[in-house]
């Protein structure tokens, strides 16, 4: 049953990212997986093997699109070619919702291919929300924006990250893809309490949750998606589920990718928290 207007897919359960080292396993063994998240840009192409594999996956699994280069927060307008290709893919996958990051990465037509942090200003929130609305109207699919990990903060910021996220999603009237690992990483890099972040965001807008691992360096933490989820991140996940209710959850593992089974087993650990939440809701 839908939890609210932005979390219409509570039955989606636990998914994992579709990654090329697992293609053979998935297509030959057909493991039971609630859903797969694809990186949209990997399939915004004209033809060839990637689209063939995607079509085979679509025959058997639910797929949700996740983008890495829409750059809602870039001051320049959206790239029309990007939008055209993305819409083609949306039609192909019939993704029930679409996610990308609350960040920027291009300026004057030059792309950094990175998820660069936003200055938390009202001007940036207004520009970002406007672009989210435009993209949603063009693609005709619900959108949820993901909080990113960051390693820098700007002098010009006028609010906290969670206040900025709230400002953007309220203005755009869109959902949140809450990445609890990113909250943890940024909290360590910027000295804030990650629990406060989760308490302060509008829980009713949380459409999806990301969990992942990261790498710890001497003076900062990098969001590398190459390790299992650590306990403090699971604790944040539990808090997020407690606030947002049963929410589609996705484990990201993008580097040093282990076997399919290992990745899936790690993702399924989320079941423990989802079951607790379901029990609490029933009581």
């Amino acid at each position, binding site marked *: 049953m839908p939890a609210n207007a932005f979390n219409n897919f509570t039955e989606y359960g636990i998914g994992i990212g579709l990654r090329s080292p697992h293609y053979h396993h998935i297509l030959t063994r057909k493991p039971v997986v609630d859903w797969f998240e694809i990186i949209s840009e990997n399939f915004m192409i004209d033809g*060839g093997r990637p689209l063939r594999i995607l079509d085979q996956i679509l025959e058997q699994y639910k797929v949700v699109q996740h983008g890495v280069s829409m750059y809602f927060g870039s001051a320049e307008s959206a790239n029309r070619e990007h939008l055209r290709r993305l819409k083609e893919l949306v039609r192909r996958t019939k993704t029930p919702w679409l996610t990308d990051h609350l960040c920027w990465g291009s300026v004057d037509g030059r792309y950094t291919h990175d998820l660069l942090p936003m200055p938390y200003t009202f001007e940036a929130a207004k520009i970002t929300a406007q672009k989210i609305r435009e993209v949603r109207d063009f693609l005709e699919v619900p959108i949820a924006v993901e909080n990113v990990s960051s390693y820098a903060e700007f002098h010009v910021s006028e609010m906290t990250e969670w206040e900025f996220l709230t400002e953007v999603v309220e203005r755009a009237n869109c959902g949140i893809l809450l990445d609890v690992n990113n909250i943890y990483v940024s909290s360590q890099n910027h000295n804030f309490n990650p629990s406060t972040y989760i308490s302060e965001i509008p829980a009713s807008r949380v459409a999806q949750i990301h969990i992942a691992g990261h790498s710890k360096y001497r003076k900062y933490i990098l969001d590398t998606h190459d390790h299992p989820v650590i306990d403090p991140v699971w604790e944040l996940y539990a808090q997020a589920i407690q606030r947002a209710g049963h929410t589609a959850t996705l484990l990201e593992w993008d580097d040093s990718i282990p076997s399919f089974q290992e990745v899936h087993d790690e993702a399924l650990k989320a079941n423990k928290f989802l079951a607790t939440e379901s029990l609490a809701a029933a009581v």
Partner: protein
Amino acid sequence: MNLMSLQRQMTRAVMMPLTPREGMRRVSSNGRSMRAIAAAFIKPNDRLTSFDRLEIYNRQYWFRILSSLAEDFPGLRAVLGDSRFDLLAQAYLSARPSRSFTLRNLGSRLEGWLRKYPTCAGSRLKLALDMVRLEWAHIEAFDGKAELPLTAEDLVGADPSKLRLRLQPYIQLLDLRHPVDDLLLEFRNDRNTTFASNAFEELRKRKRLRAIARLKPTAIFLAVHRLDFSLYFRRLLREEFIILTQLRAGETLRRAVESAFRESSIAVAERPSCVQHWFQTWATLGWFCQADKNEIPSQIRIREDNEI
């Protein structure tokens, strides 16, 4: 500072080439202190200065795009050697930063840039250019568009003087001065052998150097194509190449065939059977699709030997 100004400022810093020790430069291209620039818009924290924090993004940018380019052009890397390739990659990406939302297109302007700055390839320019063209063709053929192949019924009653056959968009046709297809396949087979030792890596490098030294300039014509979603290199005769490039340019079947045999050494008596055999092969491979009536013919020429 408004959003656009901040993003321009940060982009300039992030895209600035790294030092030889892979750190952020201390001075910007216009002579300003990077510490002062970073401090002006980025907050420090209790562990990192503004410069340190900006440097994380500067390093991430270069590591990401350099590794992506190296992944797309392993043949060029082998031809030039690691050090020269790294210098070339940095120079190319500094001059031609990505203008696409996807890293897939990072190497799209490499051939043109290399022709403009030939010294970056040292003494192996012609070989490097051939390899760049082949590796870019590989990317284009991998995920290029495929249309419904032409069937025999589509050709019933067609007049060769009017018939314009259309090649599958994913097929890439190349005229090259070196047999770089063999070289690339050798490198790729070599790369698939995994032994994690320095001694083996040295052995592999020496093997590659020998393969490059052995390679003699020889003009080849090549089609990079797909079959069952796998990529293949198919060597073509000069006449085959001309027919295919002429058809791609929108010429009629008759004119394409006439052009192919204009300076051909194939005996006149053998030509009909040759053409029949080629077309049978190409049709079996699904290379033809429905003609686009709006396509405008254009002149196609073959590269002269001394042309770069």
